[in-house]
């Protein structure tokens, strides 16, 4: 035995299929960064994973306070997974407030790592603890590992010419180093990132790396952990992978749409949570010929995008729900002028300002109907963070071919969530067809429709001989002039509707996972894909006849949807709203679909959907969402 191994305690190594960790701390503690770094390491290692950042609305709520707690959950596995996990196996709590707000989610018996130095009277009081939970026995149901993170971090950074505050801010890297050790990961990915990130601040780099290594070494030398865990790489299709968030994938998808179509992209946007990252991403990519425009308001953002679309470029605007409300009049102008505009809505929770940093999928009806008159737009909705890439291309493919505005419904969970992504071959990507109007003799009619798609010709300024006038006033389908003719308005309204309906011939059929017919179909859309898919898989493992299908095209619906709906005895529609898709399905297909609703700002847990499945199949009493049980409100 060497001296070294004598110093290091023996750690038993245990292999796990899946682990879910939540990092929680004050919003100034760098928990999002810690989570992201752990995620990158797990991704590069080859685990399948899904993440759920959960940050407060306040940029800096008072330090140590309950509203200031920021969390980041990652689930990583050696098998394919679809969600960031219902309940964490491990909770890292950097202060009492983080413990208080997150402990309820930790699995019974779960591993709880806390910075015990922060459990002092002031912080305990801010977190409304009457006694120290580390001492009063209230944590008996968990494996508590109290570590002196603050103090040890200080010791590790001793002698560095940094302020106490700057040193304190390195604690998250100490915690990160410890967790990386615990799961048998190397520090390489984080060191590489930090070296690049802090290349102009060698002092900060040195401090962070010291903290990181100190945390890692502590894990190796301490006897607090008896077990070190291994989560082997997942078996996933071969290819080159990267880690990507939904908003990144959205931005890249629109870049791809520009490259694939050969049309320059114009992005008009006004800063709004949780969509701003798309503006940040696209504004970096000027070498793709992309022009971004931070407008004076939401209306100007869409107005400018309409102007660009009118000019023959890819007109794109992006926002969240309140912004979509502001854009609705201008969106209707694009409906009326039949321009190929795409509107991104990264949905967030609640009406009005609501809960900007929380997720919801409650803008479906706004996208579908939220405008004056009979107004039809196409709607697409990605179902995972990486799916945002493909659906962004799809949005412009549809908009350009059919000369119609398209709403792209993402949400906060998809936008901020992330997963590994097999980078597609460019040759695999959808083709984007478009053409400008053909030159012609005589007066040009901007509403002379393509007989197949009903798309009008896209005549853009600069095209000689095609000078014409369009606008919000109803136009004659025959001449393009203003028309108040009753028959014309009737026909133009029906043509605008039929134009959207005919997109059905141009979109894929709805795919069903599970039995082709059976007792129950669970139908979803948007960011609930992961929870629904996992819940249905689990149900089938339990021998139940349950299929799932996920709508990525919401207007028009895929052609086979009515047929799919008929093949199951019951249809369950879980949504993070009060039943918007259910209303459409019931109204359009006269199917007695059962709506299951959660409006908490949080995504569905797998167990919640499984609970509802069991109820619908008569295997249990009424299922009620856990968080509503004590409050006595119905979960739908």
């Amino acid at each position: 035995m060497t001296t070294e191994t004598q110093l290091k305690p023996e750690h038993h190594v245990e292999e796990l299929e899946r682990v879910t960790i939540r990092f929680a701390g004050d919003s100034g503690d760098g928990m999002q960064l810690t989570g992201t770094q752990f995620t990158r390491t797990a991704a590069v290692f080859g685990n399948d994973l899904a993440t759920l950042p959960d940050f407060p609305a306040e940029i800096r709520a008072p330090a140590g306070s309950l509203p200031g707690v920021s969390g980041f959950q990652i689930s990583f596995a050696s098998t394919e997974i679809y969600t960031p996990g219902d309940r964490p196996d491990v909770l890292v709590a950097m202060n009492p407030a983080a413990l208080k707000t997150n402990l309820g989610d930790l699995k019974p018996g779960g591993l709880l790592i806390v910075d015990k130095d922060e459990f002092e009277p002031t912080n305990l009081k801010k977190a409304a603890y009457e006694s120290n939970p580390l001492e009063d026995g209230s944590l008996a149901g968990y494996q508590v590992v109290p570590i002196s993170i603050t103090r040890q971090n200080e010791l590790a950074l001793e002698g560095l010419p940094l302020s106490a505050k700057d040193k304190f801010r390195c604690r998250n890297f100490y915690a990160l180093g410890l967790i990386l050790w615990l799961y048998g990961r190397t520090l390489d990915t984080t060191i590489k990132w930090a070296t690049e990130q802090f290349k102009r601040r060698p002092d900060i780099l040195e401090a962070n790396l010291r903290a990181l290594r100190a945390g890692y070494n502590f894990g190796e030398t301490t006897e607090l952990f008896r077990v070190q865990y291994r989560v082997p790489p997942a078996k996933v299709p071969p290819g080159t992978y990267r880690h990507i968030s939904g908003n990144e994938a959205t931005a890249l998808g629109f870049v791809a749409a520009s490259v694939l179509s050969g049309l320059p992209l114009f992005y008009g946007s006004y800063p709004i949570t949780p969509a701003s990252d798309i503006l940040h991403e696209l504004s970096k990519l000027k070498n793709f010929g992309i022009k971004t425009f931070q407008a004076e308001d939401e209306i100007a953002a869409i107005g400018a995008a309409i102007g660009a679309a009118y000019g023959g470029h890819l007109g794109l605007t992006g926002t969240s729900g309140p912004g979509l409300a502001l854009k609705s009049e201008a969106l209707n102008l694009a409906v009326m002028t039949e321009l190929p505009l795409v509107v991104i809505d990264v949905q967030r929770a609640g009406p009005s300002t609501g809960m900007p940093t929380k997720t919801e999928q409650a803008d479906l009806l706004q996208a579908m109907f939220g405008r004056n008159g009979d107004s039809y737009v196409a709607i697409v909705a990605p179902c995972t963070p990486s799916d945002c890439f493909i659906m962004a291309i799809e949005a412009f493919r549809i908009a350009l071919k059919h000369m119609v505005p398209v709403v792209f419904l993402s949400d906060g969970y998809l936008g901020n969530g992330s997963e590994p992504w097999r980078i597609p071959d460019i040759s695999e990507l959808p083709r984007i067809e478009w053409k400008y109007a053909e030159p012609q003799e005589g007066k040009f009619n901007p509403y002379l429709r393509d007989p197949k798609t009903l798309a009008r010709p896209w005549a853009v300024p600069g095209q000689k001989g095609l000078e014409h006038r369009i606008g919000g006033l109803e136009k004659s389908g025959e001449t393009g002039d203003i028309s108040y003719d009753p028959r014309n308005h009737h026909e133009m309204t029906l043509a605008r509707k039929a134009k959207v309906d005919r997109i059905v011939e141009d979109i894929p059929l709805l795919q069903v996972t599970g039995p082709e017919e059976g007792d129950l179909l669970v139908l979803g859309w948007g960011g609930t894909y992961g929870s629904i898919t996992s819940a249905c898989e689990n149900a089938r493992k339990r021998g139940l006849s349950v299929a799932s299908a996920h709508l990525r095209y919401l207007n028009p619906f895929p052609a086979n949807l009515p047929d799919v709906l008929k093949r199951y005895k019951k249809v369950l529609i879980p949504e993070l709203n009060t039943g918007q898709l259910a209303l459409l399905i019931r109204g359009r297909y006269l199917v007695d679909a059962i709506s299951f609703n959660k409006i908490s700002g949080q995504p569905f847990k797998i167990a919640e959907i499984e609970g509802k499945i069991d109820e619908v199949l008569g295997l249990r009493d009424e299922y009620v969402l856990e968080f509503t049980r004590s409050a006595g409100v119905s979960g739908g």
Partner: protein
Amino acid sequence: MTAPTASNDGLISPDLPVLTRKDFVTDQEVRWCPGCGDYSILAQMQKMLPELGIARENIVFISGIGCSSRFPYYVNTYGFHSIHGRAPTIATGLKTARPELTVFVITGDGDGLSIGGNHLLHAMRRNIDLNIILFNNRIYGLTKGQYSPTSEFGKITKSSPYGTTERPLNPIRIALAAGATFVARAVDRDTKHLEEMLYRAAKHRGVSFVEVYQNCNIFNDGAFAAFAEKEVRAERMIYLEHGKPLRFGKNNEHGIRLNGFTPEIVENAESDDGLLVHDAHAENITLANILVGMDYPDFPVPVGVFRDVDAPTFDQLVQQQVDEAIAKGRGSLEDALRAGETWVVE
């Protein structure tokens, strides 16, 4: 077909045709009320456009909502009749995407200063190369006679039967405050001067703002008659000309001088000495601001170019950033997809 861009635009024909006024007239019947000041503005515009030497297909008129905003239907170029107040936003997107186009924004006092006030401000502060023509008739005409943001205090209208209780905006002052690089005023009846102002606005590189006093003979008839009628014009209006002393009167006999920051009339000023000399090229807007404060009946109403300065335009700056980025190497989708850390699964 390739997409039009500023640097590679296959759409713009190299040889400019010789155009006449008729080339800019559409087949649409003009539907403003007989006697409306809009007719004159349309006529001067159609007369002026051929002088620009720009092919018809490269000119775009974008309007909002209101009587004035019907304008694009009557001009045979590309035209977009948009929604209330938002014309500057659509024009901004179009001009930013396609800087090679000549873009006019047609708006009114309600459209541009009330519902669309925000957009007008920002288009002007950005100095985007648009030609914004604001028809100011100090009334809501299309909705049949409510007061507008430029209606004089106490004005009796359909929506203010006891007189308005709000003070008006001065459009020129707003334009100056927002940093517009070309700011002018004209009157519908003074056709030659109006045509000149439209021409100079179109020629200016950067945002041009022209306020046109326009008579609504149905709901606000004679709003400007007291000073704009031909017989009294010389006495009651003053034509600003860069580098020249401010003079007015039938024989240009009166002048304007400054007493501190206050203008005063010098009747029968024999010499130019001491008279205020107009400087439209001044970066500082103090002088222009003093001039815009002059109003009838205390002063002759100033018309002409208040401000005409050079500054980089928004559309060019945006294009420049794109061009510079592309010069360093056009983006590769392949590389963008593989940005950051990647790993290979065999």
